[in-house]
């Protein structure tokens, strides 16, 4: 393979405005061939707008979008070799399941018999062969979901766009579909672009994730990057649960920032570029990377007292009050129960951090 294998999708300085309202502010990103790529963000962040621009339902106000190296702006949706799985599925209610799946192939010029044969194979792939003759309204939500998927995959698009396709399903089905989607992507080798506001869904399925907020790209990376090394407050807060503490930096010594927070607690953590002595910044630390001890452990140990233990199944969530400082959430795996890491409410304890768990963030 040549090194210049073009990206599946390349968005270059794309801007989208509706009148005075800017939905997307100069986005640039590349989506690789055969990648499971997720656009993640709260509602109104512009992720669906970007998806619809790729599909051809919205035009690009400024900038350009390339599909395997070719600019696609100006092509109507029916001339773009991308297919969409819609949020509400948009299955044609007057057509049977088989004819729904065959529709794209027929519109592409395949003969009716051939389209139906290939549609049948697609239904087999999503295990719905026995429902081929039914109308979409006679299927359950999960089955409709799979028909929508089969319909969009049948014409073998170069890129498959998925617009929050799992949001209407219940939790159990959603988990099963997450895995099924991931397997389908591997089997078909088609590039998937998945839009969701559910960070857990994004972390589970994606090769890479673009976190978006108010029309801007916040961070792009794989699940670990985004979870463990959030680049700003928004990402740290939006992805997973975290403790965000206001800290002041006293000094910086060989890449380590020595900080203090309310109540006089001192702690040391890896510094980042923008931080200097005297700056007031935020410290983000994940609840599962904190643990309690009865006596101070080596390194960072903050004096606190236990307020409450909450049993949440696999984990125990503990709320502690730092002496003279804010509240902190700690998550302990249930299997750790024997390790004397759970204390009764009111017990004086020390909060300890795993090495490298704390991350400084600038506004």
């Amino acid at each position, binding site marked *: 393979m040549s090194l210049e294998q073009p990206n599946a999708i390349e968005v270059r300085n794309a801007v989208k405005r509706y009148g005075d309202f800017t939905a997307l502010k100069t986005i640039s990103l590349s989506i690789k061939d055969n990648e499971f790529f997720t656009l993640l963000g709260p509602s109104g962040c512009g992720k669906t707008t970007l998806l619809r621009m790729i599909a051809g339902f919205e035009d690009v106000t400024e900038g350009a979008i390339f599909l395997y190296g070719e600019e696609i702006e100006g092509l109507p949706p*029916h001339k773009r070799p991308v297919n969409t799985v819609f949020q509400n599925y948009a299955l044609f209610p007057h057509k049977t399941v088989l004819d729904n799946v065959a*529709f794209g192939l027929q519109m592409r010029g395949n003969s009716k018999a051939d389209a139906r044969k290939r549609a049948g194979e697609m239904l087999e792939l999503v295990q719905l062969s026995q429902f081929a003759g039914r109308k979409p309204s006679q299927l359950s939500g999960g089955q409709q979901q799979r028909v929508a998927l089969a319909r969009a995959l049948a014409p073998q698009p170069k890129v498959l766009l998925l617009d929050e396709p799992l949001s209407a399903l219940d939790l159990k089905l959603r988990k099963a579909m997450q895995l099924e989607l991931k397997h389908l992507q591997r089997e078909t080798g088609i590039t998937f672009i998945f839009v969701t506001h559910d960070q857990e869904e994004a972390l589970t399925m994606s090769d890479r994730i673009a976190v978006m907020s108010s029309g801007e790209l916040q961070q792009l990376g794989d699940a670990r990057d985004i979870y463990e090394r959030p680049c700003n407050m928004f990402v740290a807060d939006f992805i997973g649960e975290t403790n965000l503490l206001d800290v002041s930096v006293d000094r910086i010594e060989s890449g380590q920032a020595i900080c203090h927070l309310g109540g006089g607690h001192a702690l040391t953590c890896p510094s980042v570029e923008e931080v200097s002595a005297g700056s007031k910044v935020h410290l983000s630390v994940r609840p599962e990377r904190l643990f309690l001890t009865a006596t101070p452990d080596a390194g960072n140990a903050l004096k606190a007292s236990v307020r409450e233990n909450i049993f949440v199944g696999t984990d125990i969530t503990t709320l502690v009050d730092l002496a003279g400082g804010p509240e902190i959430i700690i998550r302990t795996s249930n299997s750790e129960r024997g390790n004397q890491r759970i204390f009764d409410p009111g017990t004086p304890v020390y909060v300890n951090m795993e090495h490298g768990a704390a991350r400084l963030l600038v506004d």
Partner: protein
Amino acid sequence: MTHKRYDIKSYPGFLQITLLCLFVLYAPLIVVAIYSLNASASIAVWEGFSFRWYVDVFTGPESAKFKTAARNSFVIAIIAATLATAIATLAATAMVRGGKFRLRAWSFGLISLPLMVPEIVTAVATLIFFNSIGFDRGLLTILLAHIAFCIPFAYLPISARMQGIEDSYEQAAQDLYATKRQAFTKILLPLMLPGIISGFLLAFIISLDDFIITNFVKGAGVETLPTAIFGAVKQGIKPNIMAISTMLLGFSVLMVLISYLVSRTDKTS
């Protein structure tokens, strides 16, 4: 159930008012239907059950006149309803799928204005219009007038139906390589069909029983069923008029029933 107290059925006088309204609406129709089966030649005296006036409609001295009038009425109603439905379908597509365009509210007003304007005004205006351009009155003038005033009646059920169809269906079709035209004919049109059928039947009924406008724009000697009935009544009401009226009523009920069934089967599927 606490909200039962607020159920409209428990309001004082609800039953009485309902029965009164139903009586005023339907009693005359029932009287006409019953007396159409009267054996007597007088419309006021009951002399026993008979179909003789129905037979009279088809074979009696006035049968030729009624037959021509009925044929005119049905031909006009079918053509007028078809064309009005086609125009209304296009209008509804533009109004519902056209996005925001200037004068949209005005366009809607223009389409539905004929429903608000007193029919006699439309009738006089249409007559003056045909006269001023020197258009000879006859079947064609009736047809043109009927097409015009049937449009809003066809438009309402079609646009109501269309508003209920999410535009993601057409987007999905276009996403799956259908051109705009194919998305319209293969997806949108079949989904609109129940609305189109309802619109057609409504326009058909409205055209079939129109009297005022027809009476103004018809040429001398050209009759539709309503004008023929009116002409016959002027010479005194005979029981055969009741028979014709009852048949017309039955036909209208049938149309409404079909329209209802079409919209119902669609909801259950």
